[in-house]
């Protein structure tokens, strides 16, 4: 690991200002992804701004009947919160499907949104990767691409976003709240927060230099049956091959988002309208324009079947 200087932030705005003025600075909260990447020289900060002492670890109601989740709320605490379990069970389920108990105790809400891909070619510093070193190429395209993206990818990158939490937040229409170095705040709909790789896969979200996530808000609860199904190579503590976040109302309408298939949590609003027609129609709309490799083409079938299983379970619960 390269040497770095270290400070503890006094306030969100001070943290943002420090990150903007210090060359090559990074925020650190849980650190479970950042330190992992620093150890193998993929992340190389010269300065770390520890935001753990900031007052951003609360879960509280909002004026419009929704909930504000502080950026530093740990994944364990968010999943276990009584209001989240009752009103947004999809979010609890997605969080509990991710990582291990030890990691969830450390990992934060904002850090989970910002985690980097687990593409093995991104992690292997002897391989070409446009995300790690722009312009070096993409070893995944001609390599083992079983875990990679089937929609929204580009010739520069077919990595997937690893988060389960973000998939649930996408289905729940979350908003990301930030503070900028000048103290101004902004609210970013989660649909616009993560970016597709295009020619700039090293850019993964719309945050600007120094901008710090302070909270994630959810609109008022939408009810319905909320299910998160994650398909992976082992039953626990593995990243998704495919995951489905589903909310179904009594009248058959609902929402669906996918994990494990794209560079960002994947939702196509037009696909929601197909829910009464069944999994095949929904999957066709979600995966329109899919570009697969020999290794990952199975994900198209897996999405449809996982959707069908999730819809069937929702129906069972209604009966």
């Amino acid at each position: 690991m390269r040497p770095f200087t270290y400070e503890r932030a006094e306030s969100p705005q001070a943290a943002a200002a420090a990150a903007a003025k210090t060359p090559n600075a990074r925020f650190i909260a849980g650190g479970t992804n950042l330190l992992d990447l620093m150890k193998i020289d993929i992340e190389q900060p010269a300065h770390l701004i520890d935001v753990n002492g900031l007052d951003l670890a609360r879960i509280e109601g909002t004026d419009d009947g929704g909930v504000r989740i502080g950026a530093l709320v740990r994944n364990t605490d968010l999943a276990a919160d009584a209001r989240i379990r009752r009103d947004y069970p999809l979010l609890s389920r997605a969080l509990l499907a991710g990582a291990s108990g030890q990691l969830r105790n450390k990992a934060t809400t904002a850090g989970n949104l910002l985690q980097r891909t687990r593409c093995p070619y991104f992690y292997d510093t002897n391989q070409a990767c446009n995300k790690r070193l722009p312009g070096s190429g993409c070893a995944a395209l001609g390599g083992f691409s079983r875990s990679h993206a089937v929609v929204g990818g580009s010739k520069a990158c077919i990595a997937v976003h690893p988060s389960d939490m973000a998939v649930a937040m996408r289905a729940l229409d979350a908003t990301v709240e930030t503070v900028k170095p000048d103290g101004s705040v902004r609210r970013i709909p989660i649909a616009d927060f993560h970016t597709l790789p295009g020619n700039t896969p090293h850019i993964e979200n719309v945050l600007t230099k120094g901008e710090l996530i302070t909270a994630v808000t959810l609109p008022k609860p939408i009810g319905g049956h909320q299910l998160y199904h994650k398909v992976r190579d082992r039953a626990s503590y593995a990243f998704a091959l495919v995951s489905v976040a589903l909310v179904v109302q009594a009248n058959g309408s609902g929402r669906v988002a996918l994990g494990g298939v794209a560079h960002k949590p994947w939702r196509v609003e037009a696909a929601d309208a197909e829910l009464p027609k069944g999994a095949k129609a929904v999957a066709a709309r979600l995966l329109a324009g899919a570009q697969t490799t020999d290794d990952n083409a199975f994900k198209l079938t897996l999405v449809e079947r996982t959707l069908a299983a999730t819809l069937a379970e929702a129906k069972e619960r209604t009966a």
Partner: protein
Amino acid sequence: MAPSNDWKFTRRDVLKMGAMSVTALAAPRLVAGGSESGLGATSKPVTAKVGMEVNGAQQALELDTRTTLLDALREHMHLTGTKKGCDHGQCGACTVIVDGRRINSCLTLAVMHEGAKVTTIEGLGRPGSLHPMQAAFVKHDGYQCGYCTPGQICSAVAVLDEIKADIPSHVTGDLTAKASFSRTEVRERMSGNICRCGAYSNIHDAIEEVAGGAA
């Protein structure tokens, strides 16, 4: 033997390194800051002071900022019960309990834990006054080589506390009901601790016995 900074390889050492690592030395690493001077990074180690309570004793340390909590425990406080397995949060051998929560001590910096209360395997119990979980692992033979055991035991102690604190898991059926103990719950909740000897069934028996005694 006096420690030396010189690299002295025997022929056997070179053979052990194997073709792969030799290739890695020869190939340029495709990382952003190829040279040490890149990115305006400081090239000199930086130290910082941190104080924490470890197993009930105050510790005042001055550490390289890069020092993980795991390395601080092992190399600076000489509490070598906590083990380094993968050093990337994948195996759970380094699990310790910080402010009541189990974490991977390899994935956190020591300087981030000013004022923290840390419990390691040495702090749970000692020879002659074992923690009930330590005693149960001995009784049920919950290990073979023993390397993952300190992490398994710290994790197991915390798992029972998490169930008591009504923290649900991936296999919890009803999120609105209170979390409860079962073997399925233990399997899911202990998935961050790998045992390559495969002592899992005995580990489960040990945890079940302690949970039964506590209920």
